[in-house]
C-alpha cells in the first residue's frame, strides 16, 4: 500500500523528459551490466589489456633509466600512452562482442534506443579502463618509484574525466568499425589522432600531480580542455549513434 502510494507520487511529479532520460540511463546501465558480467566471466579484454600494459611498462624501463629524474618528468606521458594503447584492446571488444549470433541486429531491432546502447558500451569501457588504470598505477608506482597517491582527489577527478573522453570515443568508433574487415587495425588508426588533445591535457595535469607541484592556471586550462572535449564528443557521439549503427 505504502509502496503503491510512493510509486504513484514519484510518477506524477516527475516531468516526462526526466522520466525518458532516467529510462535511457537505466537501459544503458543494463547494457553495461550485461557486458561487465560477460567480461567478468571470460576476462578476455582485461587479461589482454592488463598483460599488454605491464609489458609496455616493462619495455619502457629498458628504454631509459626508470629512476632518473628525466623519467619522472615523463611519467605522465608514459602512463597515458599505456592507457591509450591498452584501452584500444578493450574498445575493440566492445561492439565486437555483439557480432556472434547477430546479437547486434537483435539489439537494434529491440526497443533499446541506439543512444542507450552507445552509452551502455561507453559505461562498460569506462569501468574496464578505470580498472586497468588502477592496476597500472600500482605497477607503475613499484617499477618507477613514483608516489601517485599524494593527490588522490585530483588524480581521481582527472582519471574520471580523461577516461570518460577516451571511453566515449572508443565506443562510437568501435560502433563505426564493427562491421569492417580490418576492424582491429582501423580502430586505433582512427581514434589516436582524434584523442590527441585529450591525451595532451591528461599528460600535462598528470605530470604536475606526480611531480607534486601545485596546480596553476596552466593545469586548469587543460582541465577545461578535458571538460570541453568530453562534452563535445559525448554530444556528437549520441547525435550520430543512430546514423552510424543503423544501415542506411
Amino acid at each position: 500500500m505504502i509502496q503503491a502510494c510512493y510509486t504513484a507520487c514519484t510518477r506524477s511529479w516527475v516531468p516526462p523528459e526526466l522520466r525518458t532520460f532516467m529510462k535511457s540511463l537505466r537501459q544503458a546501465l543494463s547494457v553495461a551490466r550485461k557486458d561487465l558480467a560477460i567480461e567478468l566471466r571470460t576476462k578476455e579484454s582485461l587479461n589482454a589489456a592488463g598483460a599488454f600494459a605491464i609489458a609496455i611498462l616493462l619495455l619502457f624501463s629498458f628504454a631509459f633509466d626508470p629512476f632518473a629524474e628525466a623519467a619522472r618528468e615523463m611519467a605522465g606521458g608514459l602512463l597515458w600512452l599505456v592507457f591509450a594503447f591498452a584501452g584500444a584492446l578493450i574498445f575493440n571488444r566492445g561492439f565486437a562482442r555483439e557480432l556472434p549470433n547477430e546479437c547486434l541486429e537483435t539489439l537494434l531491432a529491440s526497443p533499446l534506443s541506439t543512444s542507450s546502447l552507445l552509452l551502455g558500451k561507453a559505461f562498460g569501457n569506462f569501468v574496464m579502463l578505470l580498472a586497468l588504470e588502477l592496476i597500472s598505477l600500482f605497477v607503475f608506482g613499484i617499477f618507477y618509484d613514483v608516489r601517485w597517491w599524494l593527490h588522490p582527489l585530483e588524480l581521481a577527478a582527472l582519471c574520471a574525466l580523461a577516461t570518460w573522453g577516451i571511453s566515449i570515443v572508443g565506443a562510437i568508433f568501435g560502433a563505426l568499425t564493427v562491421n569492417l574487415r580490418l576492424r582491429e587495425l582501423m580502430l586505433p588508426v582512427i581514434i589516436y589522432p582524434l584523442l590527441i588533445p585529450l591525451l595532451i591535457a591528461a599528460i600535462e595535469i598528470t605530470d604536475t600531480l606526480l611531480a607534486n607541484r601545485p596546480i596553476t592556471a596552466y593545469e586548469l586550462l587543460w582541465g577545461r580542455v578535458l571538460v570541453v572535449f568530453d562534452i563535445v564528443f559525448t554530444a556528437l557521439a549520441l547525435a550520430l549513434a543512430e546514423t552510424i549503427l543503423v544501415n542506411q
Partner: protein
Amino acid sequence: MPQAIELSKVWKFYGDYPALRDCTLSIGEGACCALLGRNGAGKTTLLRILAGLSHFQRGAVRIFGQLPRASVTRRRIGFLGHGIGVYEDLSARENLSFFARIAEVKNSPSVVDAWLERVGLLRAARVPVRQFSRGMRQRLALARTFLHSPDVLLLDEPFTSLDDRAIAMLGELLSSARQRGATIVLSTHQIREALASASDVALIENGKLRYAGERTREMLDDPSLLYRLYTELGTA
C-alpha cells in the same frame, strides 16, 4: 480491418544497385503472410526494412501507422533473423532477463521463468549458452523472440535448420500468437508448410514483388503454381 503493415512503392539501393524495386504490400492485423522467393531475391532485405534494421531510399513503410524505427514500433515487434541473437557466455536465464529488461517487460523474473518452462529449458536455466546443444539454442532464440508478446512477428527463414522438437514448438508459438491477434510475416523456402498456415502470400523475385495478396485454394493444392504464373523464370 486496419492495416498492420504497409509498404508503399519502396525502393532500396545499395549504391546505385536496386535491391528492392517499387514494392507495395499491405498486411492486415492478425494475418499471417508467407514471404516466398529464391535466395537473393530480397526477402531478407524486406524483412530487415520492416524490423527497422535497414533504411530505404524511396517510398514509405508504416507499421501500425508508425515508422519502423520508432521506439513505440520496436516495442511491438519480435524479430528473428538468421542468427539466434543470444549471448554465448551468459546463461539462458541471464539472456532472457536481459532482453526482458530491454523490452521493459513487467514482472520479468516470473515471465522469464514461465518462458524457460515453455521452451523446456528450465532445468538448464543456469547453464551458459555456450554449452547448449543446437536444438536448445534454437528454442532459447524462440523464447527471446516471443518473450515480450509482440504484436508483429518478423521471422527470417525460421524453419531452416530447426530440429523436429523446435519446429513443433515454433508451430505452436505461431498459432497461439495468431490466436491473440498478432500479425506474422515469415520468409521461407518451405512453400508447402508455409502455404498451409498462411493467410496471405507475397512472392518476390529480383527485388520486385510479383504477387502480393491472399493465399488461394489453388495455391494450396499446387504450390508451384505461384512460381509458374508470376515469375519469368518458370517452375520453382
